[in-house]
């Protein structure tokens, strides 16, 4: 009896073990595995870009070199160069870094704000819920790109402002989902038990309710990561993204557009890069949803 009790892992270790197990479960979903593989590939590319990229992403070498052509100082332009003579492969590798740093930070920011709003609205209800829900509905009634354009037109285009804009535009949607989950969870007996124990509202929200809402939140986070990736690229494409010459897939396509008749590869490679990354996130989200439904 006592032996059994000592073998039980304590709470944090149990949580870690569960997290590992749910990633192990991903093996059961081939679709999810493919998605995880694609995402992992791009993360690896982003990590090794400084060492593995054949050229500097901003160095002007030789304009309009076709894909596979040889570079003047040795080496090869596998994907060709753009109109300013910058190596497209290197720009794509560094661009992976841009989007893979910016998108998770922006998504994380949106989730911090959205989860706080949702838990507060769902747990306390009353006037706070009414106000937060109404404000969320108002923000969600904006066509999302219209909202981004107004925000960026007001505060200007920069990495920080993109994070701010994504947080502002996505938090209401997250709030709605979290609020729904919390409205259900707050009536569970373990919440009543914690209330009877005299735990603070904050403790109940963070320790009793939030961990039990994690499944749908994780799936939604993956989907949103895909949307945010698209959003960052779209803003770059529309000329509202990061200022040049930072390597950004969206603005690479935008710059290549006028020359697409003669040099289609300049637009095709970054377009394929962004599409595959978003596909990876979406497949991963689909796999996670499949698994969470099985539970």
């Amino acid at each position, binding site marked *: 009896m006592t032996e059994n009790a000592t073998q039980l892992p304590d709470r944090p270790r149990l949580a870690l073990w569960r997290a590992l197990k749910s990633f192990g479960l991903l093996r059961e979903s081939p679709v999810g595995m493919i998605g995880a593989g694609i995402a992992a590939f791009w993360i690896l590319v982003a990590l090794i870009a400084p060492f593995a990229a054949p050229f500097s992403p901003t160095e002007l070498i030789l304009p309009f070199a076709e894909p596979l052509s040889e570079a003047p100082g040795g080496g090869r332009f596998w994907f060709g160069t753009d109109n300013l003579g910058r190596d497209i492969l290197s720009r794509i590798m560094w661009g992976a870094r841009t989007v893979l740093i910016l998108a998770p930070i922006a998504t994380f920011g949106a989730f911090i704000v959205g989860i706080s709003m949702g838990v507060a609205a769902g747990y306390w209800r009353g006037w706070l819920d009414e106000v937060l829900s109404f404000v969320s509905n108002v923000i969600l009634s904006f066509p999302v*790109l219209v909202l981004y354009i107004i925000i960026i037109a007001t505060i200007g285009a920069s990495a920080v402002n993109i994070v701010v804009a994504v947080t502002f535009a996505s938090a209401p949607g997250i709030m709605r989902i979290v609020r729904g989950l919390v409205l259900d969870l707050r009536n569970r007996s373990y919440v009543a038990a914690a209330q009877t124990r005299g735990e603070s509202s904050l403790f109940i929200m963070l320790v009793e309710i939030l961990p039990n809402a994690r499944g749908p939140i994780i799936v939604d986070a993956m989907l949103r990561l895909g949307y945010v990736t698209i959003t960052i690229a*779209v803003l770059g494409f529309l000329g509202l993204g990061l200022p040049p010459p930072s390597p950004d897939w969206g603005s690479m396509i935008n710059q290549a557009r006028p020359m*697409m008749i003669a040099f289609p590869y300049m637009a095709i490679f970054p*377009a394929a890069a962004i599409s595959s990354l978003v596909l990876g996130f*979406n*497949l991963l989200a689909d796999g996670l949803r499949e698994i969470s439904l099985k539970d």
Partner: protein
Amino acid sequence: MALLLIKRFGYLLLTMLVVSFLVFLLLELSPGSVADKVLGPYSTTEQRQLWLEANGYLEPFFSRYLDWLGRFVTGDFGESTRFKVPVSEILWPRLGNTAILGLTAMAVIVPLSLLLGVLAGMREGSRLDRSISIVSILTTSVPEFASAVFLTVIFVFWLGWLPGTSGMINGFDAKQLILPVLVLVLYDFGYVTRMTRASMAEVMTTPYIRTAILKGLPYQRVITQHALRNALIAPFTVIMLQFNWLLSGVIVVEFTFAYKGFGALLLEASLNDDIFLIEAAAMVAVFVAVVTQTLSDIGYTYLNPRIRFG
């Protein structure tokens, strides 16, 4: 039903009021930056001060907001600084062009995704179901500007079948509408298909469908006369909400193909700090979105007997 209509209409007005306040707050909070944007970076401090005085910008914020709202409701949106004409003169024709583009896209998306969704949801887990699901994930993963690149390379440069821009310089040309519509359809039909599939699959597991099959009705009749009625209620809402999404999608597509629509206008306005044009375009976009949302809510209530009689 009348009470519901009044309630929804009131909610619509309230939403628009808050939206207008938000737009005004974002764009016109500081009069100095408005003067800067209207008069340009080379104007002198004196000119700005005169302009601010002449246009009532020295009033307190709320009285400026009420003035602005009053003019807005009567259709006076101010003058575009980029085009040097009243905003309403360019906004409405552009909106008409976008309506052509958007409605054509919807006319393809709705039947296509309903058909695919019903086919996929009829037999959950079948090979057809899985193929449709994978295709719809694939197409929704490709952002509009990326699929525009791929389609342009294939149909314009490689096959030479279609024009690469849709400026409609020599009058309306249906051929120039094909690529923009195709891009919108490719990105959006997957989502509606998946929603329809989920709704159809759910209905197919209900007892009344099992009864219908077991009592020996022809399968086709079970689908068309029993399943579809309930399965198409949820997709109706989803489809109405696509108008909101479409207003985002057209911005990218119109910019890409140089189509003279409302989305390209809003983008051009924001890239050139044409503040009154941004305000008007944003308000019109949100208005269309909120109206379709309201119609969707009313329609859902009307279609669903459990709510209608409940």
